[in-house]
Structures are given as structure tokens and as C-alpha cells.
């Protein structure tokens, strides 16, 4: 039933629903793509939970790209989701060094180590921002999420949050950003 629903819906309609912010469409995509991703991950040292995690991450990648306008459809959505889940899973496997021989000489891998450091620093810093975001009030949190994550325009944000116009939303965004910076400096 879900497959037929998906066929009826079609990729174009799904993309439209993502563009309009309909998160329910991700559930349809999840069910339609669950089996191949489950097979892929379970055949490559992963668990059922790993597979679900990879599929959810892939759906969010799709969402983010479509919403930001950077998604280019060169294949079916199912192909995109499978390829993304595959890349994410193999990337995680590499990080967990399941594919790497254990007696490897670390000095031969200085480049990997450097990128791992950068990755770690970025991850820690992003975590600090996330924590600070929780301390600047609900309206500011929502506004900054709508701007940076949902990538909505100031007009759209004004409509969603009930501001008089885009200029008001812009002024509020400035205040919220300063509040976030202040919360961050209190942390570090």
C-alpha cells in the first residue's frame, strides 16, 4: 500500500511537499526506502538500529538540500536516499575503523588525524552553540532556526512568527543573534 501510495505521489510531488515544509512526507519516504537501506547496512556490519539511523539521516539530508535549493535531481529519490545512506554508513564504518587494519602505523596517517581533529573541534563547537541556543528564549530560538536551518526569507519568518513585516523580523534576528553570542561567551 505504501509503495503504491509512493508511486501515486511521485518524486515531483514529494519534492513539492518538502519545499512547502510538509514533514509528513518523510514518513512516506521512510517506509518506501526502509528495506533496501536495512539490507545494505545489515550486510555491512550494521544493526537494525544503525539502518534506521542512516535512513533518517539521509531523509534529513534530502530535506536540507531541497529546502536550501541545492538539491539537483539526477536520479530517482529512492536512488538518492540509498546512495546517501550508503555514504553515511561507510563513513561511519571508517570512523569506527571497522574497515581499517588494527596494526596500522598512526604516523602514516597524519592527514586523517588532522581532519579528525578539525572534525572534533567543529563538532564540539557546534554542540556549544546548540546548548546556547536553548538559553536565549523560545522566540529567538525559533527565529534563528527558521533563518539558518529552514532557510526561510525574512518575509516568511515574519509571517510564521507574527511580526509586522520583514524589517521587524530582521531587527529581531539581529537581537537574537547577539543574545546567542552572549550566551556562547558565557559558556566559554
Amino acid at each position, binding site marked *: 500500500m505504501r509503495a503504491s501510495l509512493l508511486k501515486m505521489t511521485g518524486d515531483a510531488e514529494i519534492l513539492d511537499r518538502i519545499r512547502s515544509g510538509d514533514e509528513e512526507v518523510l514518513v512516506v519516504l521512510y517506509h518506501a526506502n526502509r528495506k533496501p537501506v536495512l539490507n545494505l547496512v545489515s550486510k555491512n556490519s550494521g544493526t537494525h538500529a544503525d539502518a534506521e539511523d542512516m535512513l533518517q539521516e539521509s531523509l534529513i539530508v534530502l530535506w536540507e538540500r531541497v529546502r536550501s535549493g541545492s538539491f539537483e535531481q539526477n536520479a530517482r529519490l529512492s536512488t538518492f536516499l540509498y546512495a546517501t545512506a550508503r555514504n553515511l554508513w561507510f563513513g561511519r564504518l571508517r570512523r*569506527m575503523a571497522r574497515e581499517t587494519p588494527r596494526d596500522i602505523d598512526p604516523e602514516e596517517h597524519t592527514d586523517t588525524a588532522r581532519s579528525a581533529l578539525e572534525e572534533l573541534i567543529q563538532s564540539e563547537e557546534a*554542540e556549544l552553540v*546548540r546548548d546556547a541556543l536553548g538559553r536565549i528564549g523560545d522566540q529567538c530560538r525559533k527565529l534563528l532556526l527558521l533563518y539558518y536551518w529552514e532557510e526561510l526569507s525574512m518575509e516568511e519568518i515574519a509571517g510564521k512568527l507574527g511580526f509586522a513585516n520583514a524589517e521587524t523580523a530582521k531587527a529581531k534576528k539581529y537581537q537574537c*543573534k547577539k543574545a546567542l553570542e552572549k550566551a556562547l561567551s558565557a559558556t566559554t
Partner: protein
Amino acid sequence: MSDETRKHWTDDEDLLARFVLGRLDAAEISALQQHLIDCPRCAEAVRAEQLLAAGIKRAGREEMKERLATRLGQQRSYHFNWYQAVGIAATIVLLVTIAVRNDWFSSMEPQYAGREKSDSMARPTRETPVPHDAYLPASKEAQKPRASGGESKTMAGAEAKPGKELKKSELDEIRVVVQEKEKRAEPVTMALGKGERSQPEKMQPALMSVATDVRELWTDGTVIHPPVIRFADQAANVPADAKALSIVEKTLKAGFDTTSVSVTQRLVSALPAARRISQKPDRVQTLLRQGPNGVSLTLYSDTIVSPQDLSGSLLEIAGEDSLVLHVGRKVIGYKTPRGWLSRSK
């Protein structure tokens, strides 16, 4: 005009955000990037904006993932899953079949001697007990068909009539059940077992109980530079009772039962403020945590340990109060409160 007072494009909040979010065309981006080469202050402003954007996006992703998980959870609760239903039905049928075959529904008390109550799966269910050697899984005795000597015996569901020799398949069945039973019954006790967790007064003063089943210990690991203990020489240098163990995705089979152990690294900036001020050279602040899901070591260090090194690290339990972690070419020693690592009697 000095650099401080000069107007820079990064002072335009809106332009800065659009640059970081990639909402400008290639020509604009190229022109703005050119300016960054000669303006370190501007490059720093771009970096700060990138950091904010990355953190906010991360929060957005996490929140969306939580919402998606909630939606999927709700769906699962009202979608009838035929595969699960068939599986459950098959399990019930199998259990009933086994129960009937093993006479589990009989109201008669088992009459057997010399066996512990926990042997319920392997015990004779009726009549006279089976001689002990019939349960020895690897013994030649157990492989021989046994004459009942005129006594009626029932073993693991295989009923033997008086005078009838047990068939090989019946003996095999007994052996399998006994092996299973012995696996379950194998006593594995340890100092940090459930019994001790329930008695907080026995804890060492340095320990901090953070939840019913979780213990945390902040400790400074001392970096022992090679060649004091070299990775390759570990067998010659560690005490006889120490065991070298692979960590990630493996189980640790000494001291901690079969608990899994994980090693993670975080930057010093992630340390709680109170711990951050007590940094010392050649020390690695480490949070050692033991809980029902295993043991975890979180190393706080700005000197990166690559994922390959973390996953290939080894942990040794040295005596009752020391741990030695081999990670990459580094060897880090930890002193732990007595009793944390040794097996209880």
C-alpha cells in the same frame, strides 16, 4: 583610514549570513572571498558566522530527527504488522509444543535429588533421578547408551521405558540442554556486581554515584611515554593477572564480566569548568564510567587521537587498582579505587 575604522563587507550582517549560507551567486562569493585574504578581522567574522550557522543547523537537524522518530513511533503503534504477528504466533506454537513435549503443565512435583533448583530445564521431571555422569556433555560415559536398570527415567522430555536403552538422539538432546544450562549457570561475579551497587556505603570516597546503576569517577591518567611500557612488550611488563583486551565493539572478558568498553575523546574545552582549571602536563583528565551497559572512558585532551587509534586501543587491568590504556603509541596509566576492577569473592 585604519583597518579598524574602515567599512568592511562583513559588517553587513545580512550579507555575512547570506555568504555563509551560500545564498549569493558565484561572482559575488568570489569577490567577497578576495577581500578575506587581506582582512584577517573579516576572515574571523566569517568563521564566527560559520560556527553559529553550523551549530544552529545541527540543532535543527537534531530536532527534526526527534520529530521524525516521534512520527514513526506513532505510526508503528497503530499499523498492524503482519510479519510481527506471524512471528509471535509461531513463537507461541513453538512454546506450547515444547511445553507439552516436556510435560511442563504437569502438576506433579519433580522428584530428583542432588540437583539444584535452577536446573529446571535439564532436570528429570518425574520419577527417579538420572545418574550425574549422564549429564556430562563431553564425557565418553555420557555418549554411551545407558540401560535404565529396570528403573523408569525421564530426561529432558525423553522418556525411557524400563529396560529400554536411550537412543543416541535422546542423549544428544540431553547434552544440548545440559550445555545450555551450564552456560547460563556459569557463575560470574565481580567487585562491581549488582550486590555491591546496592550498598553505597561500601563505595570508595572518590566515587560518585550518579544513578542507581551508574558510577562515575574523574581521574587523571598519567601519560607513560614509551619505552617505560611499550605496546609490543606488554606481555613481559604487565602483571601476570593483567589481560590485554581489545576495546571497541569487543567485550572485555576479565574483571568486568563480559561488559563492553568504549573509549571516546573530547576536547579540553568540553570539560566542566571545575575540572578545566586543574590541567597538568602529561595528565589526561578522564571520566571513567561504569554502568549496566558497560564501561566507558572519556579522555579529555586537545592532542588528537585518531579514530583508528581509539578503535585499536587496548586496556589492561593491572592488579586491583590500576588500568593501563594503550592508545596509538601512547600509554596512559590510571589509578582506580581498590575494588573497582577486581572480582569479588
